[in-house]
């Protein structure tokens, strides 16, 4: 029997992996994938709680998150393409125009 705790641990692990990826990796596409990973980690915990409480609310929020994630991916990939055209690179180290 899979308990809520198991699911939450899975969620936390996925979230930590995603967070580490965002912080460590330099390739912007991988960073975006890591963000997706974090969003889905949250989705897992929503679904887990929804199952435990017998409520539909968590499921609905998951759909919302998916929609937002899809939009984010669309905008993000467009930005990546623009960046690549401009700089011929997808390495974040080379994109630091906002330096103070």
């Amino acid at each position, binding site marked *: 029997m899979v308990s809520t705790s198991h699911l939450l641990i899975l969620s936390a692990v996925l979230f930590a992996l995603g*967070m580490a990826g965002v*912080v460590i990796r330099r390739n912007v596409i991988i960073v975006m994938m890591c963000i997706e990973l974090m969003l889905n980690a949250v989705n897992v915990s929503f679904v887990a709680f929804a199952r435990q409480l017998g409520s539909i609310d968590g499921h609905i929020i998951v759909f919302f998150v998916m929609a937002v994630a899809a939009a984010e991916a669309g905008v993000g990939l467009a930005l990546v393409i623009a960046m690549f055209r401009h700089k011929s690179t997808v390495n*974040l180290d080379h*994109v*630091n125009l906002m*330096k*103070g």
Partner: protein
Amino acid sequence: MEKYLWAIPLLPLLGAGINGFGALTGALSRRAVNIIACTVVGIAFVLACLVNWELAQQAGHGGAPQLVSTWFEWIAAGSFSVDAALLVDPLAGVMLLVVTGVGFLIHVYSTGYMAHDPAYARYFAFINLFTFAMLLLVMGENLVLMFVGWEGVGLCSYLLIGFWFTDTEKAYAGKKAFVVNRVGDFGFLLGLFVLYWGLKEQGIDATLSIVGLREIVGANAISGAVITTVCLLLFVGATGKSAQIPLYVWLPDAMAGPTPVSALIHAATMVTAGVYMISRLSFLYLQSPLAMTVVACVGAATALYAATIGLTQFDIKKVLAYSTVSQLGYMFLAVGLGAFSAGIFHLVTHAFFKACLFLGSGAVIHAMGGEQDIRRMGGLRAKIPYTYWTFLLATIAIAGVFGTSGFMSKDEILAAALAANPDYTLVPGWLLYSIGTLGALLTTFYMFRLVFLTFFGDFRGGKDLEHHVHESPWSMVVPLIVLAALSIVGGLMNVPEILHGDERLHHWLSGAAPSVARVDVVGHGAEIGLMVALQVLILGTIALAYRMYLKSPAIPQRAAKVLGGVPYRLSYHKYYVDEIYDTLIVRPLHSISRVFLWGNVDVKIVDGSINGMARVVRYASDLLGRLQTGQLNGYAFSIVVGMVAILAYVAVK
């Protein structure tokens, strides 16, 4: 009648507003400016006559004549309240007539004198504004409103002395007048503060209304020391405004302004404000013999001192300026002796003859195309006869020749000095009398020197200038004639008892400013004897001036040489007082300001703190700016760290 009191000062203010609008926009023609400026003052004069008539009616019914008009409560702070109110008693009534009457004549004269000046509307806006401020000073029911007028006339004086401000020297003269007056005004203000404090100390609800003060002082509610301090501080203000030692230095320089301004502000009205103030507060001054004595002594000293400077000046307006300082000294001598009506009488007659002399000098300068040096004049008698005759009549009046207004008023003052009341005057009366007599003789001498050098002998200004000389337009001549007539017959308003007169002005003022000097210690015979002796001396002095400056012009140079040149040079250079003030006060102040106040306080402390703050912000932002690396991962890491920190805090709590 009370309802219309406010119209008297507000009409000139309205004129100033309209003319000021004209000066800013150029929308008014010269004719319109003329009509507005003269009309408002003319109507004010008519109203002033009505007010005096009303006062006379009241006096006829018995009791002290007095008109009060309260408009609104101006200042209300706790128990302290000041009304915007006007008070006209016989004293203020006389002053009203002088300010509006002589003022009106000078306005008319100005339309001719300033006819070719480009800043015509500005001139009339200022001079109307001056009339407003002066009327406020005269009519103010309380000392605060009087102070507003006091400051207002100072401002207008500054604006009009520096009227031709493109000339640096003239602008500087205006500034000097303003700064010297500030010193005096500060004394005046301190006097008001001490008075207020003194009343509070006694637990009296402090009021600065003149009628209220009269009652409080009459009840002996304030201590003598406070009254003496207040009187002396107010007198400091008077020495500034009325050009007495030690603050007289601005008045001779004030001649840089247009000549009608010198006549109106620096001879007839504003400079007499100090005399008027002391008369208005006579009840206060009479409580302090010490202050009275100081006033009398400063007045006598100034009368003699300024006269000695007048002897050697060559600028026609400078001679008149020192003469004004000297005559103001006589007025202070009179009020200091407690002979308030004599002081006010001399104020009125002086307004007539000195305004006439100044306007006459303006006509001379006008005729000479701007030349003011009497060494380049001479023989103008035939060329500008109207100016000559009026100037001569006014000179006879100021010299005090028998029967003229100057004779009546000066004789009254000298008689008061001789009969000084020892309760109020702590120095012997004969001393003040001698100083006054000597000053009167010097006055006669320098005034006739001026007349002989200007109007007699041969023209010394060269051929080109000689062709230019012309009589002034009617708008300038008519005021001269009126004023000359008044200088001769004006004395009839107060013929002394000794000449079987009824002393009308003296009785008229006895309620508002009671005179105390009249203790008949000198017999009638002796008084007449002294009067005759003085007349003989005056005529002798005229003859002496005639001999020295017309018969044998070499005498003055010889006299200057025989005297070793030192007294002459002292007088010619005005006793170097300007230089002494410059060394002792102006320069040290400059150095302190430049080295200490500017170099240290301003640059290091004020600027330093502002610049220091800016520097701190810049360094801080440099440090904080380093955090903004532009590296996305770095930002993400910061967010993570922050989030973990918050979670840790929540968890631990």
